[in-house]
């Protein structure tokens, strides 16, 4: 991603860093909800209710755009894929090893890069391919340790 930051944007930088911290808190909260045996569907349900209310409040100042028959398709895609992602994320942090799931979240960069090539015709520089290899390596390392500790327990 080659991040750069202007000197006067340090507040936004801290806010961005805190957004990463908030993601971590979300992972942790999902894990805790699973540990007290809350069903996955209920976890995603309450997330959906509260987050849609939050988003509604935030959306209104920017003006509400009523979907038309041509603009509705991306909305359906966002909603459907976002919901699927949310369900799988809840399962990963509920049942999987927390940190292994966190490492596997880097695979998002791999998928986005591949979509960039396929859908938007992006030309990936060699550094992006290196990053993809690193993310796959990180995932394999993280997954191998889980399967090893599982065998050890048996």
């Amino acid at each position, binding site marked *: 991603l080659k991040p750069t930051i202007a000197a006067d944007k340090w507040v936004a930088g801290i806010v961005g860093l805190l957004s990463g911290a908030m993601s*971590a808190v979300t992972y942790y909260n999902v894990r805790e909800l699973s540990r007290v045996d809350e069903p996955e569907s209920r976890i995603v349900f309450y997330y959906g209710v509260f987050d849609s209310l939050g988003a509604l409040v935030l959306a209104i100042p920017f003006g509400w755009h009523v979907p038309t028959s041509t603009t509705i398709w991306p909305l359906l895609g966002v909603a459907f894929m976002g919901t699927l*992602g949310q369900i799988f994320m809840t399962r990963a942090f509920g049942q999987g090893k927390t940190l292994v799931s966190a490492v596997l979240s880097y695979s998002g960069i791999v998928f986005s890069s591949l979509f960039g090539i396929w859908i938007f015709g992006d030309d990936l520089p060699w*550094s992006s391919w290196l990053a993809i290899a690193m993310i796959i390596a990180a995932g394999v390392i993280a997954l191998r340790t889980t399967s090893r500790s599982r065998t050890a327990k048996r």
Partner: protein
Amino acid sequence: MLAASLGFATMAVFIKFGAQNFSTAELVFYRSALSGVAMYAVMRRRGISLATKHAGMHVRRALFSVVGFVMFFHAMAELPLATAMALNYTAPFFTVALLLWLARERPDAIVAVAVVLGFSATLVS
């Protein structure tokens, strides 16, 4: 988690198309609204009640994710996209910190290496 990432990456493609006509908050609204409606249907079907003994935990989970996406959007608006994304991808480091602090769980050294490797990749990419 791989399936989750694939879902979110596909969602991001639709966001690119949807952003031409809708604000990001609207897109988040539709996503969360469908999650709520779809899960309500699943719960009805499976006979899972809406009642919970852990309302506080649900509120906390939702609150932090709303605050998180507001912060992420603010960062995306103010900073180069790559920077905002990289900052958000620091999440696994905070996960390590939370596990140490709240759960007293020491991360496996090899998994910690994987976290560093994964994050370095976001910087290289």
